[in-house]
């Protein structure tokens, strides 16, 4: 399958403090990739940087290709075409993600006018169709309403409609359900997966909710302290995590079946980006860490056809995991 997006060695620093320290991601057309990790691990920054949406004082380097074409540092006009037209993005807090003083119609039609060759009434008809598509009832009338007149779940639906306005090839959903309550959360995820399969659109689902990612993504990348530490097909990652951090994350989830066990927490906290440990960033919290871990940061290396891990003890940690499972 042809690659839609390939990110190579993407690095971001804010005021000299590195927050993204060499990220590589490859995404196929139509694929759903989950990006998990704690707050501050660089999940959102990766995609904001790729689309040139970070504030000006952010230093970004590396390469981001969209179907082979470099978009990092591309001219503003080209980026404006990519944003919304090829790659759309929806955000965590829907309530503040829409402009409070503009009607839904203006915000939706703005996106349509930018990316679709539509005129006059066709724009409004398409806006109505999009609202219908995302399940906003009485679309014709609701177009004239303002964001504050909708509930959180509805606003997120409108955000999705707006994201779809440009017929994008890729939708970046940045914690799309974190601010919503559980039932609405399920509805929004359901909507996203329906739309994705109907439109054959690729999706990156950024979340710290492992369950959400497991259900909705083909592949998962685990991020820690500005790097990807493990990447694997969803089912394999959850059944058999290799990186000690991924093991820790999954170990912290309560199992649905089997005997009750104590949930294990990962000791310590995420390192301060300004004072990163030399070597592996996870080493200070890692039960399996040994002297060589402190020397150099391990790079993401393949351990199977479709899996890669950034850990010099990938093999032994895999064995350790199996050992624990056998007990």
């Amino acid at each position, binding site marked *: 399958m042809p690659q839609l997006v390939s990110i190579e060695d993407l690095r971001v620093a804010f005021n000299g403090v590195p927050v993204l320290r060499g990220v590589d991601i490859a995404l196929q057309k139509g694929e759903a990739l989950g990006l998990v990790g704690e707050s501050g691990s660089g999940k959102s920054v990766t995609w904001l940087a790729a689309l040139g949406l970070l504030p000006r004082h952010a230093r970004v380097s590396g390469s981001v290709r969209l179907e082979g074409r470099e978009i990092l540092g591309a001219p503003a006009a080209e980026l404006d075409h990519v944003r919304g*037209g090829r790659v759309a993005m929806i955000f965590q807090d829907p309530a503040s993600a829409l402009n409070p003083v503009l009607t839904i119609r203006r915000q939706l039609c703005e996106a349509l006018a930018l990316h679709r060759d539509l005129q006059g009434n066709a724009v409004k008809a398409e806006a109505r169709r999009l609202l219908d598509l995302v399940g906003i009832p009485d679309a014709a009338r609701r177009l004239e309403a303002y964001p504050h007149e909708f509930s959180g779940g509805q606003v997120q639906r409108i955000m999705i409609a707006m994201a779809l306005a440009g017929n994008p090839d890729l939708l970046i959903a940045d914690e799309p359900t974190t601010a919503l309550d559980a039932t609405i959360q399920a509805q929004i995820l359901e909507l996203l997966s329906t739309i994705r399969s109907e439109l054959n659109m690729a999706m990156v689902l950024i979340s710290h909710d492992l369950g959400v990612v497991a259900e909705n993504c083909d592949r998962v990348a685990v991020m820690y302290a500005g790097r990807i530490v493990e990447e694997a097909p969803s089912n394999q990652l959850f059944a058999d995590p290799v990186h000690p951090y991924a093991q820790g994350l999954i170990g912290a989830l309560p199992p649905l079946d089997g005997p009750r066990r104590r949930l294990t927490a990962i000791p310590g906290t995420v390192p301060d980006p300004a004072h990163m440990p030399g070597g592996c960033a996870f080493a200070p919290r890692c039960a399996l860490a040994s002297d060589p871990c402190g020397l150099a940061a391990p790079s993401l290396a393949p351990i199977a056809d479709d899996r890669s891990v950034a850990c010099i003890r990938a093999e032994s940690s895999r064995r350790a995991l199996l050992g624990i499972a056998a007990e």
Partner: protein
Amino acid sequence: MGRYFAIRIGRAALTIVLVVTFAFVVLRLSGDPALMILGPEAPPEVLAAFRKAWGLDDPIWAQYFDYFGAIAKGELGRSMRDGRPAIELVLERIPATLALTLPAFAFKVALGIPAGIYAALHRGSGIDRAVMMTAVAGFTVPSFVLALVLVLVFAVQLGWLPSGGQDSWRHAILPIATLSLGGAAVLARFTRSAMLEVLGQPYIRTASAKGVPWRKVVTSHALPNAAIPTVTILGFMVGTLIAGAVVVESVFAWPGVGRLLVVAVANRDLAVVQCILLLVAMTMVTSNLIVDFLYGFLDPRLRTKGAHA
């Protein structure tokens, strides 16, 4: 919406009554108009006759009710100095004051708002720092100091402009400049912080993320939101159009309402002072009402809240 405004109008009327009452009491407790106007040398029987003629012998509450009774009939009293109706004296000074404050208001807006927007869009740049330093200076230097500095430079040293009086349009330049600079500084600071606040909002990122060119993000997404706090300060400035030039008029010997107020206070010319204060309170309150109305127009969230209230 109707109730939203009914409440505000009621509050406005109460504000005016309070201002007028306060002025009435303070003026009557702070000196004897008869002594001020006739002078300490005046014979006691003249002073007594003066007090009797103006009702100054009555108990203060009786004077107060008489005063409100007269206002209700549309009478604002007469000047104790020349016996003319106070309102006439005040009205004939208003054009002179507006000749300073209206152009100054236009300059404040034309300088302050673009400077604030520009500084916010280029935050941290040399121009931003220059704008903010100028703004802080304009903000902290009192207008009489600025006025004196301008007089020193442009009238005394360079001799380009007159230092006071009202004989030609050239006489208006320095007073207008004094009023404009301070106001523009306040407005620039306000606009800049309103813009910075708005530019940091998630919906600005949303607009960029959907491919809206930056210029349009600023004009159609950021500015309408930043206008809401800016309107507050603009409303305040409109409220000071009538009596916002007291100091500047005094420094430049400009015969406007402000000068009249200073002279009338010094003389305890009660009716004139009260008439000016009533007018000032009314302009303030009216401009506040206009601001409230504009809020409803600019911010749909308030509109619906008003409709529900």
